[in-house]
């Protein structure tokens, strides 16, 4: 269990602007992901936990040991923290073979025990055959596994991973995920993983922390966060939703509905408890939940003709971008069939509309 409550201020410099990291969170067993855009303080958080960066104030508690406490002036040096760190570039020592890299990390064990542990780790991470090679002589996946093995060999109480999947192609990512699942299953070491890839959060994370401009924006399971972002900023960061500003025009608790005015047209939405007529709200809906129909379908509630501004191709579908700043997904076949028509009608299904 890691408990972090820190503040770190960076005054504006010649090539950086004023930045303050201010966090308070607790991460338990399993994989916790730190998600956020570049410059939100994710890596800085890892560096503070590992001891490379000394916060201005606060406290870091790992299990029951104080790693940092500004009040008591405690700052445990990185070497004594037992937080395994997998660096973004893996940082395998280029002048040592994979085996030597592991031996370096197992130095505290006596020779025989060390030899046995290194062999065991090489085997567990399928590196036995390449143990005698230098890092630049092995594949990306092997380097990755070796850096995880190296971080784990000292039996850390916490494993920190800094964007381990950055710049990896799909097969290597899959390999990384399986290696991390192995860590979870076989070692049980709590993991704190930094990423700006939402897929990765959903794939690996049991708990998710969203960082924005040095602050915690939301915390919860990845599924909950994706389903119910706590703020417009979080919804925007997730990049999953159309976000539209709307005004509450009418509320009908009896029918459990509401009427929302949206840029000149009215939409029927779900009932909004704790809102008043005239409130400004944000409406969010996933592009794949919108229905796109040809322009000549008969009018119906929540349907309106929209002006197409752009089209982007996706793996199995087409994403249509409309005037008003929203987009909708359409299968390739439907798009080809309707393309010749003059316009599109978009329907916002009532049940899919959600509000912040």
């Amino acid at each position, binding site marked *: 269990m890691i408990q972090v409550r820190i503040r770190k201020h960076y005054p504006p410099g010649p090539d950086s602007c004023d930045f303050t990291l201010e966090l308070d969170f607790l991460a338990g067993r399993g994989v916790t992901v730190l998600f956020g855009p570049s410059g939100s303080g994710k890596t800085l958080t890892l560096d503070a936990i590992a001891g*490379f960066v000394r916060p201005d104030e606060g406290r870091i508690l790992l299990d029951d040991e104080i790693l940092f406490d500004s009040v008591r002036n405690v700052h445990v040096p990185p*070497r004594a923290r037992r937080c395994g*760190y997998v*660096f973004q570039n893996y940082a395998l*020592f*280029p002048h040592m073979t994979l085996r030597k890299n592991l031996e*370096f*990390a197992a130095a*505290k064990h006596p020779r025989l025990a060390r030899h046995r542990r290194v062999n065991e780790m090489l085997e567990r991470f399928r590196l036995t055959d390449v143990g005698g090679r230098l890092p630049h002589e092995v594949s990306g996946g092997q380097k990755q596994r070796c850096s995880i093995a190296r*971080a784990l060999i000292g039996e850390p109480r916490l494993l920190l991973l800094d964007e381990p999947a950055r710049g990896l192609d799909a097969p290597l990512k899959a390999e990384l995920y399986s290696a991390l699942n192995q860590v979870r299953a076989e070692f049980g070491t709590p993991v704190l993983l930094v990423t700006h890839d939402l897929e990765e959060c959903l794939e690996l994370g049991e708990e998710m922390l969203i960082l924005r401009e040095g602050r915690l924006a939301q915390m919860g399971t990845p599924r909950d966060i994706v389903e119910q972002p706590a703020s417009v900023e979080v919804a925007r960061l997730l990049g999953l939703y159309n976000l539209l500003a709307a005004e509450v025009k009418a509320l009908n608790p009896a029918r459990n509905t509401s009427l929302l005015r949206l840029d000149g047209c009215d939409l029927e939405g779900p009932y909004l408890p704790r809102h008043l007529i005239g409130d400004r709200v944000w409406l969010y809906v996933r592009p794949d939940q919108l229905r796109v129909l040809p322009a000549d379908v008969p009018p119906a509630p929540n349907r309106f003709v929209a002006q197409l501004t752009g089209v982007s191709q996706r793996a199995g579908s087409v994403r249509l971008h409309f005037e008003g700043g929203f987009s909708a997904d359409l299968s390739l076949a439907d798009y080809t069939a309707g393309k010749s028509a003059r316009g599109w009608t978009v329907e916002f299904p009532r049940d899919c509309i959600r509000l912040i």
Partner: protein
Amino acid sequence: MGIDWFPLWLSLRVAVLSTAIAALLGIWLAYLLANRNFRGKEALDAAVTLPLVLPPTVLGYYLLVVLGRESFLGKIYESVFGAPLVFTWQAAVVAALFHSAPLLIKSARAGFESVDRSYERAARNLGASEWRVFWRVTLPLAQRSILAAAALAFARSLGDFGVTIMIAGNIPGRTQTVAVAIYDAVESGKGTVARVLVLVISGVAISILWLANRLGPRRAQA
């Protein structure tokens, strides 16, 4: 006509000794300058650079003032070793040291600074002490630059003239290094001696340059 090879041997001996001392001191100083933040770092950096920009005779003059028989350090040396330092071959070592160490420190520092910080961080994270980080990670990774720096420092100590003549003088058979001997030979019209020594030294210098270039740029990177 016989050529006196003494200056060549003396120069080699002086260069080897001064390079060894420069390497011991210089690598440590370079590491401090590259990796640590401390008070007076700027001043130390300036002090290390100064010998590079001062004319050698000026540097030699300062050393003469600081190490001369009447100076504080000179007296200490004399009371410990029983003989003065100036105008001995040991003084030639000091001269070569001051002439070459700044170059070594500059290059070694650049070498240390070119080592990716994440390797050192990784080593610390894996429980290594600072001592171990230095010997097992930083130094091996900067090894080539440091060897190249040492080669350049060796070449520079081999050829020092100005500082040597100021504090070691020109005593044939005792403190006359090759550079001084060449000057002496030309002055007294011994053309052959000068030519032979010039050719030998040029050969040594070119081999060192070749060696330094081979060591310098190529580095195994993962």
